[in-house]
């Protein structure tokens, strides 16, 4: 049997197992193990399976993962999200749709520190949704803004998903973090623009609230200093080359704990919850990375990505056409795969393919995260939509679906812009670290 046929059967087996409720890490590991055994023999595969977990579990580069997750867990416990929303609400008072724009700004900031899309959507829904409903906002607009805002954190650095992408694509974390910043800020701006456009045409969706003086706005912005301190020390430190990602993550985690204790907002029980939550989250992630490594090695052996590239060339498909097909496939996968699982399953197949067409792997990483964001918010299965409905069961899911539709144009517009202007992602890494 040809190697590529074995690869194709492996991919099919993987999706069958996922459909049958087999955990992502087991599906990746078993397909990787059996596939490599067929390609290389059992003994070399056993040797590989013996060294992969240790290489991953003792990798200094991956120590950044638990430390950034800890920073996010602590930030969630200490009410940082509430400070951010209060500041944004007052700063934007008197602007139509100001509460929704404020929720987006607060979600982008909190999501950056927190790193979890679902946690950001859940937290911001608890904080911002009651205010928006009290102000007479349309439930669809309010929930759409919160779902969209929740997805921003996985792109704006420090991004956990970009760290995981770096582990399987062997790209530098600082370079990926630099690449994610401008697209993340652009996407935030696009979401805000959508609120402005929607509320311009449907004024009843967002009644005008009371205004605030300039002094009140400035005073409210002072409340964001904790976020600004964490963000600038960690991300600024990485960009400036002062800290390695692990060092920045340690400082961020310790800083979040210190700020929480100093402000009497972090009890010992809450700290313990944060630490244990980090352990559990990482326990889940690391076994997936073990499996993804085996699967990735199998994909290399089968030369399936090469075959896909040859097929694309034979069909006279251009690079952009291949990328469009990949993006469509990702949006489809996003219907049933969660973001990190989708990344680990698909990148070993797609990354070699896109690099053969001359695309930059850092740029592709940002593209993958943006499509993962789309997967989090697109009906009927975007997880963020369900998180919001779980917190506001009286809002019909159909209202949430209706509310999210205009927001879907923002990531799609960003994807189009990224195709025509890859510099959106690549100029900052080039500026900071030179050509890759």
């Amino acid at each position, binding site marked *: 049997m040809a190697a590529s046929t074995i690869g194709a059967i492996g991919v099919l087996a993987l999706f069958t197992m*996922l*459909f*049958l*409720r*087999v*955990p*992502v*890490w*087991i599906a990746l*590991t*078993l397909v990787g*193990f059996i596939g490599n055994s067929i390609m290389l023999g059992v003994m070399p595969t*056993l*040797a*590989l*399976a*013996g*060294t992969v*977990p*240790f290489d*991953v*579990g*003792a*990798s*200094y580069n*991956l*120590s950044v993962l*638990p*430390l950034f997750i*800890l920073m996010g867990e602590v930030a969630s416990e200490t009410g940082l999200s509430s400070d951010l929303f209060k500041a944004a609400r007052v700063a934007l008072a008197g602007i139509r749709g100001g509460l929704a724009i404020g929720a987006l700004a607060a979600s982008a900031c909190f999501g950056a520190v927190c790193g979890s899309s679902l946690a950001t959507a859940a937290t911001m829904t608890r904080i911002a949704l009651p205010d928006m409903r009290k102000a007479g906002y349309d439930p669809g607009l309010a929930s759409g803004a919160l779902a969209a805002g929740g997805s921003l954190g996985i792109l704006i650095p420090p991004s956990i998903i970009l760290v995981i992408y770096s582990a399987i694509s062997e790209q530098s974390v600082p370079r990926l973090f630099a690449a994610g910043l401008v697209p993340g800020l652009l996407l935030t701006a696009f979401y805000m623009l959508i609120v402005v456009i929607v509320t311009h045409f449907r004024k009843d969706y967002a009644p005008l609230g009371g205004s605030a003086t300039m002094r009140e706005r400035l005073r409210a912005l002072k409340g964001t200093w904790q976020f600004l301190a964490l963000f600038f020390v960690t991300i600024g430190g990485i960009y400036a080359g002062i*800290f390695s990602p*692990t*060092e920045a993550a*340690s*400082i961020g*985690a*310790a800083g979040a704990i210190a700020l929480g204790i100093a402000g009497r907002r972090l009890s010992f029980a809450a700290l*313990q919850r944060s*630490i*244990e*939550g*980090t*352990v*559990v989250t*990482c*326990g*889940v992630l*690391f*076994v*997936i990375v*073990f499996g993804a490594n085996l699967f990735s090695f199998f994909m290399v052996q089968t030369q399936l990505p090469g075959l896909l590239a040859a097929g694309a060339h034979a069909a006279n498909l251009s690079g952009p056409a291949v990328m469009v097909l990949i993006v469509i496939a990702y949006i489809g996968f996003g219907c*049933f*795969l*969660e973001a*990190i*699982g989708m990344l680990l399953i698909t990148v070993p197949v797609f990354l070699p393919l896109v690099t053969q067409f001359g695309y930059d792997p850092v740029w592709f990483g940002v593209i993958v995260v943006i499509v993962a964001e789309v997967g989090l918010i697109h009906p009927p299965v975007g997880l963020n939509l369900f998180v919001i409905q779980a917190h506001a069961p009286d809002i019909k899911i159909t209202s949430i679906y209706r509310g999210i539709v205009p927001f879907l144009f923002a990531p799609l517009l960003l994807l189009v812009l990224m195709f025509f202007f890859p510099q959106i992602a690549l100029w900052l890494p080039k500026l900071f670290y030179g050509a890759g």
Partner: protein
Amino acid sequence: MNRTKAYALFDRLRVAQLRLASLALIVMMVVTLLDVFLRYVFNSPIHGAYELVEAMLVVFVFHGMSTAFLKRRNIVIDLIDSFAPRTLVVALIRFTDLLSIATIALFAYAMITPALQSYSYGEVKMDLQVPIWYFWATALLGIAGTILCAIGALFAPADPHHTDEPV
């Protein structure tokens, strides 16, 4: 011994591993923090900080996995839950419990040979001068606990919503 008592025993092991992993995380954070501070303020970084972080990551990763296994926190695509009969979903959960034990045991088995090689070659960490087989032994101990916790999941109800309980 009834199922609840057996599960409680596995849970004690899980909690012990969870606490060990938590401690490793704190040490990882503090060591890195001190290293940065001493490097920038006194130009005197901690000797072997990098390797100490790697050692703590081994403890953190291999002992931190057990909760995900006992509490069935590993990521699954539960699309089938919405249309398959409940008995089928329960059967699939039980089947994946067994698969989980087999797969993690496969990793453990595969890790024994390189661990023994590391022991017989007498490899040591460059800065800390600690034998690398200590790291392998720590990893294998963690994975052994994880296998036990994966077995412990067999004593928990096969409820699709069981994973929602707090750790």
